């Protein structure tokens, strides 16, 4: 095909899913002239799976995206249907917000926000290849014969890249929700030397509301109105629950149908080659792997305010449509179920993430960044967080600025990226609180403390957000000092504590000391000494946690500082492992493949032992001295 030059951009983003939109928005905000390409403008910020945002650890990621000036949190609040703070009672570090959103409204709101972003140009079109010169990207080609110059490219292709849908014996090339698959780009990326692999995921059916007997299901309302918290640190309008969710259960009859038809599943029939996620098993996986369980839970969630479509969380499947009908209808309350969109499995192309640096740039293809499912993750929130980082770094690359690396101890985002590029993935990666060794420090309530200053430094945080952040920080500091300096008498405490059913203890003390006692909350203290000035419920939670967990948090801070020493020891890109004595063969191979950027990262590579690390540390010192110029 003959290509015609149609424009020139600093940054080109391929794909307008949750990763692509944050990437494009962040790049444009940094001042890069940015193009966002999508196969269909009508699927910007589409939610092909759950109509919800957040959940355990994912909620943390949303707050982090927001703290850095991203869009996801603001839009989730704007299109809010219902929310629950998960894990209340299991400790503040694992409190996680999950919001049901209006799927169509979310798309509309996000599209509008992007359209109104300066420096950002949205194009409908499929990218078929990258122009490369001497190991760096210089432009992109479209299927219509267009060519655009590009200083940097972010690949955020989701399940559209080489997408193939499976429902029973039927299968066809497609992206989600009827979008056509991107079929040309994979070959080009392989030619560029990227290690491409194939993953799979799946989604349950969407069904008609009128066909469900809700009297037979358990209702699951949102949190009480007065406890509702927004995702975004910027949201200040009140939130209201607009819908309920429901819980249903499979039963032995459901499982019998699945077992009787398992040979018709493309996964069990061997038609699907892609590796599926362990954390998001299909119903047939659950039944086959956990045969002893006689029921599995299903959440019935509305897809929006102006639609009758309902989503069946927990019932993803690739069984044929006739089996799906039979299987779903065995469930109490769903006996007359009308399927609107059948469940399906989808295979897609993605990259081995160890091909990337911690900036999300490809090690062997300068200027090309990856984000989201393309990097081997799954989940809207994981995608958005990586998109934000990839967008920042693509812009920095194009504009000649210093790129951003977030170490593990700063954020779930940093942890996610480090896991990807250091350990790699064998199946689609989902964020979990257990993945962060620093989780007492990386809470959703302090994402702004951790990241907003970084966002400000890079130009993502505008004045309004910065002012709000500094005001909240000042209010918190002031309140902490008030709590340290205000004393509470034993008698005052006894009265309030007994009403709340908490052991008041024998003595009084400063408000901070009292707050450290088991069961005593900030609200109880505030009843005695009055509420602090400018203390929102979110700030109150933060203060309570920081005081109660002080010992554990300090312990983690110590570990973080110990690690920082190695985190601050860079390994130059041109460093050679070939002549390094005393390494095990495995360690040498892994180090050569991963090419860690710092000594700390080297230590986290599976197969690299502390003794290998000691060798490397000494060799680095030697190497540095040899490289220094002798005649100065």
């Amino acid at each position, binding site marked *: 095909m003959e290509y015609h030059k149609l424009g020139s951009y600093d940054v080109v983003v391929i794909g307008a899913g949750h990763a692509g939109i944050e990437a494009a928005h962040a790049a444009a905000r940094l001042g890069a002239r940015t193009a966002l390409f999508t196969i269909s403008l009508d699927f910007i910020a589409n939610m092909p799976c759950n109509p919800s945002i957040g959940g355990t650890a994912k909620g943390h990621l949303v707050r982090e995206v927001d703290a850095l000036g991203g869009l996801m949190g603001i839009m989730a609040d704007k299109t809010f249907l219902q929310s629950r703070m998960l894990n209340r009672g299991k400790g503040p570090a*694992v409190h996680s917000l999950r919001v049901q959103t209006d799927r169509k409204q979310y798309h509309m709101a996000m599209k509008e926000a992007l359209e109104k972003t300066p420096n950002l140009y949205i194009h409908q079109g499929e990218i078929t290849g990258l122009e490369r010169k001497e190991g760096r990207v210089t432009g992109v080609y479209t299927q219509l014969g267009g060519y655009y110059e590009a200083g940097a490219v972010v690949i955020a292709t989701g399940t559209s890249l080489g997408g193939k849908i499976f429902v029973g014996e039927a299968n066809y090339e497609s992206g989600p929700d009827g979008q056509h698959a991107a079929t040309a780009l994979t070959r080009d990326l392989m030619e560029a030397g990227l290690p491409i692999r194939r993953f799979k995921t799946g989604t349950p059916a969407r069904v008609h509301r009128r066909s469900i007997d809700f009297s037979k299901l358990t209702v699951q309302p949102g949190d009480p109105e007065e406890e509702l918290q927004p995702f975004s640190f910027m949201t200040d309008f009140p939130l209201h629950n607009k819908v309920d969710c429901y819980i249903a259960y499979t039963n032995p009859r459901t499982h019998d149908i699945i077992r009787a038809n398992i040979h018709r599943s493309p996964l069990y029939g061997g038609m699907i080659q892609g590796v599926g996620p*362990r954390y998001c098993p299909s119903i047939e996986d659950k039944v086959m792997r956990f045969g002893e369980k006689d029921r599995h*839970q299903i959440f019935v969630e509305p897809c929006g305010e102006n639609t009758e479509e309902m989503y069946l969380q927990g019932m993803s499947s690739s069984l044929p449509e006739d089996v799906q009908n039979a299987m779903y209808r065995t469930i109490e309350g769903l006996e007359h179920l009308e399927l609107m969109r059948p469940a399906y499995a989808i295979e897609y192309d993605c990259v081995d993430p160890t091909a990337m640096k911690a900036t999300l740039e490809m090690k062997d293809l300068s200027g090309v960044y990856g984000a989201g499912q393309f990097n081997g993750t799954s989940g809207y929130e994981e995608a958005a967080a990586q998109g934000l980082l990839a967008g920042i770094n693509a812009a920095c690359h194009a504009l000649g600025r210093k790129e951003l690396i977030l170490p593990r101890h700063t954020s779930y985002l940093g942890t996610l990226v480090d896991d990807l590029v250091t350990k790699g993935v064998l199946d689609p990666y989902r964020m979990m609180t*257990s993945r962060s060794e620093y989780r007492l420090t990386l809470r959703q309530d302090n994402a702004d403390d951790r990241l907003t200053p970084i966002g400000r430094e890079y130009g993502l945080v505008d004045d309004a957000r910065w002012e709000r952040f500094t005001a909240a920080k000042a209010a918190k500091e002031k309140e902490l000092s008030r709590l340290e300096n205000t004393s509470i008498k034993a008698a005052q405490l006894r009265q309030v504590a007994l009403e709340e059913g908490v052991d008041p203890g024998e003595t009084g003390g400063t408000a901070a000391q009292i707050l450290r006692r088991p069961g005593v909350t900030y609200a109880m203290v505030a009843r005695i000494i009055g509420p602090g000035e400018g203390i929102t419920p979110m700030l109150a939670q933060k203060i309570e946690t920081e005081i109660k*967990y002080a010992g*554990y948090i300090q312990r983690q801070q110590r570990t973080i500082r110990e690690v920082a*020493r190695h985190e601050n020891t860079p390994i130059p890109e041109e460093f050679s492992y070939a002549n390094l004595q005393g390494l095990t063969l495995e360690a040498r191979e892994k180090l050569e493949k991963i090419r860690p950027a710092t000594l700390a990262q080297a230590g986290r590579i599976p197969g690299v032992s502390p003794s290998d690390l000691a060798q490397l540390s000494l060799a680095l*010192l030697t190497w540095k001295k040899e490289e220094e110029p002798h005649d100065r």
Partner: protein
Amino acid sequence: MKEFTKTICAIATPPGEGGIAVIRMSGPQAYPIAAKVFRPINPDKKVEQAKGYTALFGHYLLEGRPMDQTVALFYRAPHSYTGEDVVELSVHGGSAMAQGLMEALLTAGASPAGAGEFTRRALENGKMDLAQAESVMEVISAAGRQGAALAGAALEGTLSRKIDEITGVLLALRGHLAAWVDYPEEDVPELEEETLIHTLETQKGELDRLIRDYQGGAILRQGVDAVIVGRPNVGKSTLLNLLAGYDRAIVTPIAGTTRDLVEEKVMLGSSGIRLNLFDTAGIHETQDLVEAEGIRRSYLKLEQAGLILAVFDLSRELTGEDLELARRCQGRPAIAIFNKEDLDPRLDTEILGQYFKAALPVSFHQEGALELVTDLIRRVLGLTRIDPYAAALTSRRQLESALRAREALEEGMNAAALGLDAVSVCLDDALEALYDLKGENPTADVIEEVFSKFCVGK
């Protein structure tokens, strides 16, 4: 950044016998830790105020009790071998005192130094040049390989299985906690606080046993310094020969034949106990200068020994010297052996016996004498509980990991009142310490555990 570095310590003198043993400690906490472990004779001297290049004389403390005489040498950063604050503590040679001091330092917060770690710090702080660094690298890689082989050998077998057991239980708990926390709305069985605490307690108990037996284990592995004392010609050398199994000391009926310490390493039958035996010159008033020096050394050795075998002659009357000796044995791991049971008894064993942990009337020439003595030694050393084939920690590094794991479990139990998030972090710490002990990495296993045991995921 330096103040966040660990403070490390290690025995700096070569292993084996020597006049003195030196333990070097380096790092930001060197002075505070030394202050906890070392007590100067002069109460006006404060360790933390000690200037660089000065020395203090005193004792080191183990579990609050003053132990061996100790000389402390102080170096202030950056004027030291490593460029950090350094304290060097010298104690009497022989492994027991130095090991005891190491124990005390580790308990007070120091960490055992890794291979070549002092040198690495010296290098990083610019105390060494490139050529020196390269030679050090050679040494470290050699030591590392040898060390790894040794650790591997120790980890095969019972200890490895025991650590696997504890790790397995904690991992199951951690997996349950992870599933329970990361999948709050799914069908994960609730984790009862009682179960949680009970599990933490039982596994802490397992670690308690390993840590407690470590000291006994050290006796089994390294041997205990044992001294044979008594008046001249009561049969000390005969006992030595009995224990050694052949004629080692010159045994004559002439009192005062053994004028100096005689050392012998013996294995007591099949008991697994190694004794570093010191036969001593007989204790009595003497004008002979050489003999007097021998007697002085006998008493010194008696004060340092981990086991005292005091031999008395049943056929002779109690003397002031016998009483003096018995008095010095009070409160020590000492056994009174009343020899020559076959002759007419004239010794008052009741008076003497009260100063000792155990007493045994025996004739060294009789059948089964060795077994009688061996059993008593086992009892006095507290080794009857220890099964030499049970899982045991075999190195200081393993002990340190076990201590860390135990501390993390204790913290986890405390954290239960606060929140499961804090408990899970403590469990991670405990697992990490146990994996350190085995040289593996835990994080991936927790995720595996979640998905293999629980049916979770939307």
